[in-house]
């Protein structure tokens, strides 16, 4: 019984981690779906999102300790950060990727790595390299039920992630812009001939992906804290999650994120190996999945991709 609760606890922690990975993985997968290119600067967008959120939140809060205002400031800060990152994402696309759209496929990849370094080193230079706390906008006392503990910030993480994913899915499936995105990912030249403004679709994709990264970054900073290199490892893992789920596939990114989070939390104790090797398990799983199913779990070539 005790062991059961212990593993349920790992599972729960894994889902929270996974929800964050999933949000970030969406950005990788959407951009890949449309441009067939891995935006390696995506992880650093989440770091910028976390800093923007933190500074906005602290500025709005000031000296106030009013519980309602704390929560309101937090959501305003999240919104500000999403808008800021969306604009930043579109801007980066315009100056660093768009001019290279018809170049060798490796060129935009290198450009993305360059942007990644500029962002993370720039943040280290501007904000310093020490970790900062993101203060909880509510009382974070854990809720313990039958030995199983969950904190309000974990609940927030899961709820916000689910809302974001539902909104994104209905946006892609129900709106004209979503339809244009799906069309562009299927066949870019034909979509252009049918009168779809491909440049706008691409800009929109970067905006949405970056806004989701901002949310992921803010949620991640409760568990990981805010620091200049926070995007590197988290971004890499989200990328892995996107590949596990089937890159280019939105549901795949969500599934991959959750699977990776759970693997990280449960893997080491389940196999009885030292926890220091938890990342090894995650990446070993990636290799196995790719060997068995190179397109990822939900990756099918005929499936609609965004």
């Amino acid at each position, binding site marked *: 019984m005790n062991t059961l609760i*212990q593993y349920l606890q*790992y599972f729960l922690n894994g889902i929270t981690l996974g929800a964050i990975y999933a949000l970030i993985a969406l950005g990788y997968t959407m951009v890949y779906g449309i441009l067939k290119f891995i935006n390696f600067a995506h992880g650093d967008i989440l770091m910028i999102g976390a800093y923007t959120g933190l500074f906005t939140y602290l500025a709005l809060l000031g000296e106030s300790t009013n519980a309602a205002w704390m929560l309101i400031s937090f959501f305003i800060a999240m919104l500000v950060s999403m808008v800021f990152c969306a604009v930043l994402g579109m801007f980066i696309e315009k100056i660093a990727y768009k001019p290279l759209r018809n170049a060798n496929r490796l060129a935009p990849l290198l450009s993305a790595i360059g942007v990644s370094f500029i962002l993370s080193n720039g943040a280290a230079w501007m904000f310093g390299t*020490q*970790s900062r706390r993101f203060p909880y906008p509510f009382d974070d006392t854990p809720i313990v039920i039958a030995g199983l503990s969950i904190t309000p910030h974990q609940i927030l993480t899961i709820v916000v992630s689910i809302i974001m994913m539902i909104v994104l899915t209905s946006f892609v499936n129900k709106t004209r812009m979503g339809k244009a995105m799906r069309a562009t990912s299927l066949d870019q030249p034909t979509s252009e001939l049918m009168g779809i403004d491909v440049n706008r679709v691409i800009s929109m994709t970067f905006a949405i992906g970056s806004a989701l990264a901002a949310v992921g970054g803010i949620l991640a900073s409760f568990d990981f804290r805010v620091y200049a*290199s926070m995007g590197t490892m988290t971004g890499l893992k989200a990328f892995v999650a996107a590949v596990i789920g089937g890159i280019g596939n939105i549901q795949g990114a969500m599934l991959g994120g959750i699977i990776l989070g759970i693997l990280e939390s449960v893997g080491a104790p389940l196999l009885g190996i030292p*926890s*220091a090797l938890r990342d090894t398990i995650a990446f070993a799983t990636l290799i196995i999945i790719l060997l068995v199913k190179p397109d990822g779990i939900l990756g099918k070539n005929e499936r609609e991709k965004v």
Partner: protein
Amino acid sequence: MKKILAIALVAFIAVFSVFAGGASEEAPSTLKIGFIGPLTGDNANYGIRCSNAARLAINEINAAGGVNGMQLELIAEDSQGSVDRAISSYEKLAYTDNVVAIIGPVFTSPALAVAQRCFEDGVVMISPSATHKDVTALGDWVYRTVPSDSLQSEVAAHYFYEVLGYRNIACLYAMNDYSQGLAEGVEDTFTSLGGTITSMQTCMVGDRDFRTQLGEIRATNPEAIYIPNYTVEDAQILEQASQLGMNIPFLSSDGFSDPEIYNLAGDFTDGVIYVGPAQAEASTILVDFQAAYSEAYNGDAPDSFATNSYDATYILRDALTRVFENGGDLADIDAFRASVNDEVKATDDFEGANGIINFAANGDMVASQGVYDVEGTTPVYVGSFQVVDNHIVQVD
């Protein structure tokens, strides 16, 4: 065209090297002391405080007239806490800057690597903070003003077992030389005393999620958890343990003495007991140093390693003074460095901020250990302890 370019290049190099050669033959007007430590990155707090303390000491020494009429100069190199950067920092300091001695490296892994080079090249190195027992294993040229891990873990295990009365404890440590050295040292001593280590959990440096390890530890039901890590890891561990509803006492090491921990996890530090540097009784040098440091660096408080770094600088000052008294000549840097080594080794009852400092034959500091009990966010000094005949003894 190519030929002209080549000739121009050769001429340029020739002229340049004449200038460079000419510059180095001039008698240096300052005594250069190198510093290696992390000045950027997640652990920059340690390196910045240590270099600040050394710089403070040097400014004081210079204001008092320097050594033998020469001013001291601190050249601080950023290792970012990594071995390869520490080695390139060392090479710059030893070969290009021609420093007379080096303070640092701050972290154990870089210190192990640089110690080997100092031993081969004959450069004195005094680390204010590298605690792994092997740092001084080479026996010469390498000193430290921080007690060795073997001493710290021995006192820690005895204190946990004999004074606190724990019989079952668990460890959660990062896979680096510092944390692993302490955890394994405590494991050895604690088990030899008859105690049980219920679980040895590991993590990587830079990990942020420790909930799985804490869950594993909770399942083994220990009386306390020993976390000999650096600030960022310890802060996360304390907070996540509280989030998991764990109500178990935490024990830590001198890494906990950095006040940054209270910024990152101030709500969770109450009740943590850690073994760190012993405090000298009513040392006015320490009080003066803390006040001077705080004034020089915008009210920031020095950690224990910074205090060690301050002492190391004055030990070097005394050694350099004696070198010049014995007719040391900077023109032959190798011979000069050798006499610095002799004089540092000859340090006898040096009176520093940390009390009386002597070096053992291998370069280790002879010292007792301090125990601290954190109340809220204030570490309260319990006392100084030594292990004598396999029993813990309070020294003061």
